[in-house]
């Protein structure tokens, strides 16, 4: 993407304009006017319908006021960088926006754009291309649209934040799980003592504990994933309602579900083994003594 500091316009045919104080004035009769698309939020706020005629201006004083016909209403593409902003937007053809924003004292303003989206033949050339553009056209900046891996962009930072919170949660859960397993093992002290008295080997008991831990941990992980799947809709609906956006905030993917199982099942099994190990090491008589 290539940017310069001129009008706050978007890329070709995707001009973006925030409605200023005065600019939107619906009128009843549709004429032979240029079409614009208005965002759902703008349509709701200004009670606009398809076919309405609106007047848009470059500023609150009404500079360059032009009439347009609402050709349609669109749901803005969710943008995580702007999800807290209210999407009061309209899209129009680039020449219409340039005419609207044209400054009579600056003939170049009618040909100005804010950004260019460029598809390179070889995406690997992005750095060389950006350097070439910046060197040849002072005042512009060029950069890749792809997110840099592990960088300091807000989503990479948020990902690290969520990962840190998840690690703390797992640590807390581990302590909780260990406490439960120790109690559970203690509860079965006599049973294990009797089993050992009748000749069942420690290895068999350990294997039993292992299988039991595996079953419980798998069931727990599956239940957790089911809860997450069931509640993700509610979480998304709440935040989508709160910020009036179609952005998806929570998504339980297969990879995430597998990661959860990969983490929780071994953790559950190990906690079970640690809990039982203290009993298995004890003398049989000590186990059945009351």
């Amino acid at each position, binding site marked *: 993407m290539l940017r310069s*500091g001129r009008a706050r316009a978007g890329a070709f045919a995707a001009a973006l304009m925030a409605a200023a104080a005065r600019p939107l004035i619906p009128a009843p009769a549709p004429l032979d006017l240029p079409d614009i698309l208005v965002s759902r939020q703008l349509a709701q706020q200004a009670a606009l319908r398809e076919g309405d005629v609106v007047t848009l201006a470059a500023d609150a004083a009404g500079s360059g006021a032009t009439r347009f016909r609402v050709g349609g209403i669109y749901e803005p593409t969710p943008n995580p960088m702007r999800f*807290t902003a209210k999407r009061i937007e309209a899209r129009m053809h680039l020449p219409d926006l340039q005419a609207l924003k044209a400054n009579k004292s600056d003939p170049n303003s009618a040909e100005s754009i804010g950004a260019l989206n460029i598809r390179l033949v070889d995406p690997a050339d992005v750095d060389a291309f950006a350097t070439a553009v910046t060197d040849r056209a002072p005042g512009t900046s060029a950069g890749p649209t792809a997110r840099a891996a592990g960088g300091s962009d807000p989503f990479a930072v948020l990902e690290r934040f969520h990962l840190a919170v998840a690690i703390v949660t797992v640590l807390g859960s581990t302590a909780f799980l260990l*406490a439960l397993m120790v109690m559970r093992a203690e509860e079965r002290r006599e049973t294990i003592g009797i089993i050992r008295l009748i000749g069942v080997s420690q290895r068999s008991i350990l294997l039993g504990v292992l299988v039991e831990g595996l079953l419980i941990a798998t069931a727990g992980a599956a239940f957790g994933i089911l809860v997450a799947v069931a509640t993700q809709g509610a979480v998304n609906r709440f935040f989508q309602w709160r910020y009036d956006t179609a952005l998806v905030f929570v998504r339980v993917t297969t990879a995430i579900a597998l990661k959860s199982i990969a983490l929780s099942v071994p953790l559950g099994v190990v906690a079970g083994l640690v809990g039982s190990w203290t009993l298995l090491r004890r003398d049989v008589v000590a186990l059945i003594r009351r």
Partner: protein
Amino acid sequence: MNAWGLAWRTVARNPARAALAVSGVAVIGALLFTMLMLSRGLLVSFRALLDTAGFDVRVVSGQGSMIHREPIADASELAAAIGRLPEVERVALVRTAGAVALGGRAEIRAVDIALVGTTESAIGGVWDIVRGSPLPRDEPAGGPPPMIVSTKLAARLRLEPGSPLQIRVFLPGTASALPPTEGRVVGIGGFRFEATDDLTVSTTMKGFASAFGVVDADEADIVLAASRPGAGSAAAAAAIAALRPDLRSYSNDQVVEQFNQNAFSYFRQISVVLSSMTLAFAFLLVATLLTMSVNQRLGEVAALRALGFRRRRIAANLLCESALLVGTGGLAALPLGGALAVVLDRILRQMPGIPERLHFFVLEPQTVVLHVALLSVTGVLASVYPIWLAARLPIAATLRREIIS
């Protein structure tokens, strides 16, 4: 022996179990404490940042936003008019632009900077001077523009007070650059609003205009005003709004409220969600541990009841046991949560554009009070079911079952 003593002996009888339970509560409590610090941290920190800058009213153009501001014309006249208001003590003009500093080091050709033009010259406001002097109030005619550079830029370009510094600005909307302007570094300072990834150069409004090749430009992006003691920022903002209805004036309270409604709301909500989850988790943890503990001690409880212990006494014992686990864990959670907040704050402050002095997690006395209150309520609620279980225990049947088993 009172209920506390009995609860202590019960907990101490299984030290490993108690240690694990306390550890679980401590870790979860630490997360809760951290999230409580996050819920208001940005607001408190942002407010402190605004207040320490020495101005409590901000005036911007009627169009744009607090971040994307249109320039205000005839700024000097506006500043003088605002300064004459009885509610206002002093006024400063600010202009900002992106520019490039051409440094003295051969290996560094140019670095991107934020160029700030201001009429402010006081130390301790928007900057702290580390070396050199602040911007002069009266700039001598014909000399190079005086400049204050941030400590990071000074280190990067090896600048000292007295060093020459070339600045090149870009004209917005044109694919061309102006010739560089040479200024003189008069001071090196720390800018309060400088982001971690920013390098800042501040100069006078005249110096700023000359960098753009114009000497008579009289525009400002923002007008800062300090209200007179006794008048208050709200009254000053209202007076400025009455003076110039075409502009927008905000007191610090209003600025904070705007950010609270938009930019900061995500972190507030994340903190609410995670606080609720950690509380639910702590509830489950304590309730499960106490219930299992009671189930293991049914015979003991029945024996105590048979000896004449009242239901209330048994309930008090369990409540004290819960209080010991949650209380000890909750206390341990405070330093643990503080350490966790430092780590998480360091992660979140890696976001681009965040002022270096802004913090996401801030410790306030009310956060500790809320933490204690929430954990206390959780501890009490978590002990309700085990208490009910112990209180309705049939004494004879339980003792019989205990003997038979």
